[in-house]
């Protein structure tokens, strides 16, 4: 009895322990709209190579954009990052299951603009780590450089120097290595204008990519059995109302001469 209970307990523990880990699957992001010199290193020990439109990159991939170069990175139906010129970044992890998504990026240098799709649940996360801070977001569009973070839409939480600070829409914080974030201040209008333009661009690219990935709208089709029913019904109606009827009329026509009003002859067919 005890042996059975202990086997059952081990089984339950094993299932419980593995259940949480087997569901969240690593996913890949797609590089698109490349301008200029954008290079990718798929894995740490691989060579840098030129990025191409539609290239898939996953966990561990590093991307760098040269002077006057940029590209978009998209994943999970709506998450999009614009990689701006002179930027180096790394995908630490991208994971997704039915209930949550988890995205972790690192910005080594340069400038990223991120637009985040509505997260699936409170367990979901989207984080960008810089040498000075960690920005965690929820339903937000924001701009990150190692020295400051500006929020265009929604709210983000910035963690730096052991302190967390919430940055709301239209505000920005400055960050220095080892120091907590500065107090949020309004984004200057000229900077906000530029960021809004990038945000709109990201929104359009994300919508375009989501639309392209969506299955084509299904035409209103007849169910297969209705299609066959139509064929069979048409054939039977034609057979009985036209073919049989014309044969009956031909048989009857041999019994009378039209216009005589009488029945003559015999049935000959």
């Amino acid at each position: 009895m005890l042996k059975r209970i202990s086997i059952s307990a081990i089984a339950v523990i094993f299932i419980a322990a593995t259940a949480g880990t087997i569901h969240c699957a690593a996913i890949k992001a797609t590089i698109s709209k490349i301008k200029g010199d954008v290079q990718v290193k798929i894995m740490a020990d691989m060579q840098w190579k030129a990025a191409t439109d539609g290239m898939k990159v996953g966990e561990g991939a590093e991307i760098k954009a040269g002077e006057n170069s940029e590209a978009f990175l998209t994943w999970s139906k709506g998450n999009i990052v614009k990689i701006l010129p002179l930027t180096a970044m790394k995908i630490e992890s991208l994971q997704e299951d039915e209930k949550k998504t988890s995205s972790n990026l690192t910005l080594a240098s340069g400038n990223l603009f991120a637009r985040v799709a509505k997260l699936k649940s409170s367990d979901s996360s989207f984080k960008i780590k810089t040498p000075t801070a960690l920005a965690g977001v929820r339903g937000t569009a924001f701009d990150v450089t190692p020295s400051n973070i500006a929020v265009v839409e929604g709210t983000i939480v910035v963690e730096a120097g052991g302190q967390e600070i919430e940055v709301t829409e239209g505000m920005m914080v400055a960050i220095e290595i080892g120091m907590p974030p500065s107090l949020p201040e309004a984004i200057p209008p000229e900077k906000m204008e530029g960021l809004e333009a990038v945000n709109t661009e990201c929104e359009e690219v994300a919508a375009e990519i989501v639309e392209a990935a969506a299955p084509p709208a299904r035409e209103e089709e007849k169910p297969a059995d209705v299609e066959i029913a139509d064929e069979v019904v048409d054939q039977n109606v034609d057979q009985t109302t036209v073919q049989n009827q014309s044969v009956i009329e031909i048989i009857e026509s041999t019994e009378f001469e039209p216009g005589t009003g009488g029945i003559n002859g015999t049935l000959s067919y």
Partner: protein
Amino acid sequence: MRAMMRRMFLCFVILVLSSTLSAAKPGPVVFTLMERFEGHSDTPSSIRDVSGETYAYTMLSLFRKLDEDVFGNIFYINKLSLDDGETAGNIGGISVTKKHSKHLSMNYSYSYTSNPERNVVPSSDTDRFSIAANYTINPNTMSAPSYSILTTYSTGTDFSYGRTIAEKFTVKDKFSKKSDYAVAYQYVYGLNNSEQFTNQYSLDLNFNITKLDRISFGYLFIDNIYSGAAYDDNIVRLSYYRTIKQ
């Protein structure tokens, strides 16, 4: 009429039994209701003259998948003479269709036609068997026309009268996602006294209002060429089909 009802009931029992005895799970019943208005230029009327007549047809059909690629259909059609305001015919039938491939299907049918007495025309009852083979080239296509050849052998149930063989060639193509046309020629040959009965030419324009409603506008020319044929018939018809799926 009572005899017809008895036969129809028997047919219905056979249909139900064949579906329940079948190994495969029968599909849902598909009901089809048809309303058709049909104008004839020359057809025998109830006073035995050959003139224009107009009819209204009402059909109720029950269709069901009986087994893998086997389909049953039982139907009743009422033919009303709009000129006389009286029923010109009651037609009941049953058919079993077997799809042998996506190109070839066979249809085996029995139908009973009861024409009531009208003016100088006495009542008549006729029942017939038909076996039809339909071969379609390029079926279920979205882009190119489909071509089909339908061969039908039809006979009175005692196999001694009204035996015919018909060959029908149809070209069907889509105008758009919802509309298509069918052009057909049919040759009907009487086997009892070995002569051709008719040539039939038809054009049908079909429009699917929804996936369960459709309208069809058709023209049919029956060129009667049997011995003693005194007239040809031009038929124009407008049909509305409503399908209800269980």
